[in-house]
């Protein structure tokens, strides 16, 4: 899976492109956990190019968030497409993961 990575001070902005599903969630997981293992504790998941997320994809997001919380860091999601937004609402993942409209708004969460 293509993942665009950018830095804004101590914040890492990850933009996964395409579908986060059974075929791609493992490569996304490796990337996300490597970023965390390298010491990044503030992450924005920019979902503007994410078309779909399966429960396996949700698990990876949860696993990353739990690791970041242990480091007293923060994960913020932004620019969710309609279907992804619905998934986060149905699972109430939006109750413990802050969701912003844009990357600029997400940056204000830190």
């Amino acid at each position, binding site marked *: 899976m293509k993942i665009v990575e950018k830095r804004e001070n101590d914040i890492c902005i990850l933009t996964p492109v395409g*579908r986060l599903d059974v075929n791609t969630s493992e490569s996304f997981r490796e990337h996300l956990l490597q970023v965390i293992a390298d010491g990044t504790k503030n992450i924005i998941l920019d979902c503007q190019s994410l078309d779909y997320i399966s429960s396996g994809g949700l698990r990876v997001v949860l696993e990353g968030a*739990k690791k970041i919380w242990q480091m007293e860091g923060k994960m913020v999601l932004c620019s969710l497409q309609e279907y992804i937004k619905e998934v986060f609402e149905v699972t109430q993942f939006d109750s413990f993961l802050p969701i912003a409209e844009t990357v600029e708004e997400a940056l204000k969460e830190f």
Partner: protein
Amino acid sequence: MQEQLTSSEVILDSLSDGVYVCDRERRIVYWSTSAQRITGWQPEDVVGLLCLEDVLCHEDKDGHRLCGEEHCPLHRCMVTGVTTTVPVIVFARGKDGRKIPMQVTAAPIRNESGEVVGGVETFRDVAPMLQDLERAKMIQAQTLEQDLPADPRLRFSTFYLPHDIVGGDYYAVKQLDGDRYGFLLADMEGHGLAAALYAMQLGSVWNQHFQLLTNPAGFAAGVNKELVRIFGRVVTFATAVCGVIDARTGKMSVTGAGGPSPLIIRANQAFEKIECPGPPFGVMEDVPYEEQTVKLKPDDSLLLFSDGAFEIHNARDELLGVDGLARILTSLDYPRNQLNMDDLQKELLKFSNDIRLQDDITIIEVHFWGQ
């Protein structure tokens, strides 16, 4: 000596996995020594034949023929140019007529300009592993096969189609008192063996807690607490919907735990979603769950389903979605016609244009006759 060791044909013929190569027209052009050993077919039996001819006779685990169909793994990889990421289990016919379970991977072969000119399929005999999985399937089926309540006021039906031989979905229906019935449909994250083992554990949790379903939110809180304990430090979860229905009044309370919104199908074929958001089981301890109350009228139906029934993409990358599932059900003249899982599966596969569906599918149907 060195030349012999690095010769591609020597390497291919020494592999324990069987290998064969087809050209773009699917004509078999190479058949390895190990392919002979596994299947009994000699190169002179198969080389020069189209792989879709009546020789290999590949079928999927459910007995659907793959050769000649768009669902053939080798054909698909040549069309899409994409190598198989997850091995597929198919059943091939050996020369002696026996069915051989094989784990198959396929990859396109490209020429120097990158054009796909053929495909290579590798396969291994997985009969011993399959025997084990078949036993696991039987054990899982025993857990899921419960007698559905018989009540002249309601009809319960359940449908279960695991993606692998065993699956990570769990469902149960139980009578709670004279009029009320509790139900649960849960989907462990992921599929395959690990998800199936967790689904078995969920079965034990159900047996300990189902009486709490007179209050579905309380039941959900209890199950969540148990699964948080069972998962421990493993990050995983189960999405679910549970509820209780009163056979006397048609009144129903439903609690969601991240599972798909159930559908009510009114007698006039109108579909209504019951929105019931809630956190999946096992994510966090002490999270609150809520109940939605709805009423079924005589001849209304309730459908609960796992996400495998609608999280299906077609060749244009479009998602079927719950609305798409409802359209397919309407095209099958449901609920005038009873739900037929074979017909539904065919329609879902037609939409997906894939070799097979990518996830477990479970459906619970409740038809309310009324008094």
